[in-house]
């Protein structure tokens, strides 16, 4: 990939394209959405005034991150308005040095599209009727289980409802189906607990469910072609005098337009729907909801967003950025190394030969696998689900057994409490290389809570992290890890009852083994003491609990 800058003018014709992005002359901040096609395949839509930068009488915009790995070869790039009545450019373009035509498809050969969030997905336009039917039936099943099993009133949401009302079918450029449910709770803690209940019930029937926040979940619904479709489940609730719908919508809304639910037809399938769907579409998309806009970006009330962030979010910061980074960890040219790090060898030399190790934040698992190869029992826990895939693959490729891979989200206190319950029965050292610089204060608090609870048998917490240093550049991966002041960290550790037994700061390396002028190594212990499970529990106490 070249380091070209996004073009800011077009010297010939109306459009300039390079490996970094594109420029369209004559498009201003109020121009309508632009559809981008590669060889007649719709791949992306953007709104100039929202997504692009206006300069030199036109709009510049970078290619989405997820598209970049595919930009190597030739394709015909067509840029047009929504109905194709105005074509800004329609020309062959060669990206990178590839000789073949660009194929923007998944591993099963299905065309990809890029959704509003910048994620890879597929659009209904390029989905077969058979798969559309599977997606619609899957959505019906999700709504039915939400009602029957979880006890909430669910209905078709967002683009799916819009398509049903406006066109009677799925919107061609849409990429997923959304489901909403109305929560009768009016306190955020209860709304979150309700999502825990829903998540638990859906996982119990074997579904693949992701938590996106305290108010929305995602079901990964398997399709017969081996792919997955995403069915988002958004909570809707009333707090104070405002009606909220995840994500990020808020405003005044008459519940009489929502309940009791009615039904609506979408591509021949019947779904529960708001009693007055048009009213909810106005709430979501404004009064011009009847005019198609594939790059629609809602104007969100920033005060309401802040409220929702405070109440419901904080589980997944940065997770989206780690996935593509880790996805390439086994490819040639990846920055991730596969041999054990110096820090791992340093720790190995100081712990018992058979001591168990919890590797927290293992990324691609280079040290998890290395510790296991040295004979340690290893639990490898990252918050990224992609890490689990990479760690298992690395262990397999090296023929190493004994790595127990389990996702742990340090920002999710439930994960931490579960880990405490497990590790208090099976003591491990806690090893975290270049992790603390990736954590916010809530996650660090949970990390040290974990240490305080499970390191009571003489085990230690071993930390390596970059520290502030005059003139030092940001450690890699830039933007995902920051330098941490050892004094501040020591204070947090001591607040959690721990003691820094060893601290050294010296030149070292970052996560990818790039030289770094200031890297700290720290060993932390907690005093041994009466374990909670040895506390007195008389029959009376048990009864009074």
């Amino acid at each position, binding site marked *: 990939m070249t380091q070209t800058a996004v073009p800011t003018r077009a010297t010939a014709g109306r459009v300039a394209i390079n490996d970094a992005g594109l420029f369209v002359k004559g498009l201003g901040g109020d121009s309508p959405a632009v559809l981008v096609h590669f060889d007649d395949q719709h791949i992306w839509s953007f709104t100039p005034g929202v997504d692009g930068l206006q300069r030199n009488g036109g709009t510049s915009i970078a290619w989405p991150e997820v598209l970049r790995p595919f930009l190597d070869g030739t394709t015909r790039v067509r840029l047009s308005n929504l109905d194709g009545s105005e074509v800004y450019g329609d020309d062959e373009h060669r990206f990178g040095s590839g000789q073949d035509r660009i194929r923007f498809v998944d591993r099963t050969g299905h065309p990809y599209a890029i959704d509003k969030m910048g994620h890879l997905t597929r659009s209904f336009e390029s989905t077969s009727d058979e798969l559309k039917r599977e997606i619609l039936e899957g959505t019906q099943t999700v709504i039915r289980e939400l009602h029957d099993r979880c006890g909430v009133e669910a209905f078709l949401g967002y683009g799916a409802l819009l398509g049903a009302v406006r066109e009677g079918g799925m919107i061609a450029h849409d990429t997923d189906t959304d489901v909403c449910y109305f929560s009768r709770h009016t306190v955020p803690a209860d709304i*979150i607990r309700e999502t825990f209940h829903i*998540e638990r019930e859906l996982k119990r029937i074997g579904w693949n469910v992701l938590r996106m926040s305290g108010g929305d979940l995602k079901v990964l619904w398997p399709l017969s072609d081996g792919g997955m479709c995403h069915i988002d489940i958004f909570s809707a609730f009333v707090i104070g005098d405002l009606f909220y719908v995840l994500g990020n919508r808020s405003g005044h809304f008459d519940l009489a337009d929502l309940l009791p639910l009615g039904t609506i037809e979408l591509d021949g399938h019947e779904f529960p729907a708001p009693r007055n769907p048009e009213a909810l579409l106005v709430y979501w998309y404004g009064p011009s909801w009847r005019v198609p806009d594939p790059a629609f970006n809602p104007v969100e009330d920033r005060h309401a967003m802040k409220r929702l962030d405070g109440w419901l979010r904080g589980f997944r910061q940065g997770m989206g950025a780690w996935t593509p980074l880790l996805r390439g960890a086994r490819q040639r040219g990846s920055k991730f190394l596969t041999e054990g790090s110096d820090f791992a060898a340093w720790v190995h030399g100081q712990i018992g030969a058979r001591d168990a190790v919890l590797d927290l934040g293992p990324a691609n698992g280079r040290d998890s696998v290395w510790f296991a190869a040295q004979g340690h029992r290893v639990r490898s826990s990252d918050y990224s689900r992609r890490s689990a895939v990479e760690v298992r693959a690395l262990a397999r490729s090296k023929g190493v057994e004994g790595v127990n891979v389990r996702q742990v989200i340090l920002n999710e206190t*439930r994960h931490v409490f579960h880990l405490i319950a497990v590790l208090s029965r099976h003591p491990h050292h806690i090893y975290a290389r270049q992790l603390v610089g990736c954590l916010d204060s809530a996650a660090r608090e949970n990390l040290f809570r974990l240490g305080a609870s499970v390191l009571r048998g003489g085990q230690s917490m071993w930390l390596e992290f970059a520290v502030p240093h005059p003139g030092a550049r940001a450690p890699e991966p830039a933007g995902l890890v920051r330098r941490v002041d050892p004094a501040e960290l020591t204070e947090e550790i001591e607040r959690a009852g721990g003691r820094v037994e060893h601290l050294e700061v010296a030149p070292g390396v970052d996560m990818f083994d790039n030289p770094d002028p200031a890297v700290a190594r720290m060993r932390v212990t907690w005093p041994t003491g009466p374990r909670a499970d040895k506390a007195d529990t008389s029959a009376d106490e048990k009864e009074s609990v």
Partner: protein
Amino acid sequence: MASAKGEKAKDVARKVRDRVRASGVFDRSLRGRVERLERELEADRQLHRKIAELSDVVAELLVPIQDRDEERVAEVLSQYRKTI
């Protein structure tokens, strides 16, 4: 050069701000009170998640673990992890 001047100006601004804040005048001003309230409100909002998570742990994990039946505890732990 320009950036060195800029840094110096920022330093001066920071010192003035810190001095004003240290005097307590800012804290008593309407803007200071609103800022403090916003910070406290944000911290309170985040408590909702903690309460929800702790209630879930108590209901699903702690109560069964109190039974002290190791086999049952192992099963409860395993089931709990599968559903969060």
